[in-house]
């Protein structure tokens, strides 16, 4: 499953880049994030609670930043296990482009969901992922602009 999107953020590239690498900002923006700890400059462990309709699942996993090309692009990849609910893994390529005083953020993401979540929720996996990605980048734009 592939997702993509574009956001315009009212801040310069350096500010947006710094925020993309700031665990505290990421923790604020990831929907349902309960914990995000930095293990190294490029590795983090996270606990995320997802609530979609009647389903409530808590994922814990690792997030890694790869292919860093500061301050213009990186890839963020992650993998989480949600106990009996199943697992989720995915990644996103994020690119920043200067446009006057603003920054245009493009992302393409892919995600895979397995286990019971995928069997029961297949009709909802894509729209849920798109919604979560939207929420993240929406929160992120606001966090950086604010």
């Amino acid at each position, binding site marked *: 499953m592939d997702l993509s999107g574009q956001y315009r953020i009212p801040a310069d590239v350096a500010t947006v880049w710094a925020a993309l690498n700031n665990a505290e900002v990421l923790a604020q923006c990831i929907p349902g994030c309960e914990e995000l700890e930095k293990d190294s400059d490029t590795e983090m462990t996270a606990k995320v609670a997802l609530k979609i*309709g*009647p*389903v*409530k699942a808590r994922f814990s996993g690792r997030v890694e930043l790869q292919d860093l090309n500061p301050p213009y692009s990186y890839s963020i990849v992650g993998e989480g296990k949600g106990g009996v609910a199943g697992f989720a893994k995915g990644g996103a390529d994020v690119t920043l482009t200067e446009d006057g005083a603003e920054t245009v953020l493009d992302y393409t993401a892919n995600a895979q969901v397995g286990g019971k979540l995928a069997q029961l929720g*297949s*009709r*909802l996996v*894509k729209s*849920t992922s798109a919604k979560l990605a939207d929420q993240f980048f929406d929160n992120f734009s606001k966090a950086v602009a604010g």
Partner: protein
Amino acid sequence: MYQTKYHKPASVDEAVAALSSAEDGKVLGGGQTLLPTMKQHLAAPTDLVDLRGIAGMDAISAADGVLTIGAGARHADVAASATVREAIPALACLAGGIGDPAVRSMGTIGGSVANNDPAADYPAAVLGLGATVVTNSREIAADDFFEGMFSTALGEDEIITAIKFPIPSSAGYTKFPNPASRYAMVGVFVAQTGGGARVAVTGAGQDGVFRAEMMENALSSSFEAGALDGATVDSRGMLSDIHGTAEYRAHLVSVMAKRAVDSAV
């Protein structure tokens, strides 16, 4: 295994109290979504608050141009109710087409509306008729109630007690059910109301139930299927999955809307 504490309150106040004192409580209506989810361990609430012991929660009545259905009314009750059949036949027909007989014998209108599954039938009727959702603490207009897939304006410890439907001059509902699940691939509810025509679409939108404004405008000038020629919905907001693409669903919306208008009584 995990433990769940079961509550069977006798009043709405007791139910709200049980819910607010629970660490992670869930309201149990007919259990047609929640129980399968719990069986799969995809949800593990600490407390279940069963509303079925509350007297009068399933009452159905009509007066002064308003049909009131208690949140605990099961789909089979609504489908068979002489009061509903007389006031809003399309609503009785919709209830009789939800899921299968087992689901209709257990599932409740309050549960369906509170869950707001993007492919459920009832949200289309609630939005299409401009109904009012009554809770233990307030009344919420349908236009403000549905906030996207699986999300509503309900607060954490808020319980739906009834739905109030203004009786339209005519209304119709037609869906294209998924042959396996009977969930609506696309379902369209149309109604001719005092405030003009309303068209609500379920099953198709990425954000759950929505109103098709272009179709409402067309039907407000002339409430007949022919008026919908050329009135479409944008495929960009439609669901796309193994059962059908976004374009297919957008096309189905037009087809179902015309059939719903033709069936309206």
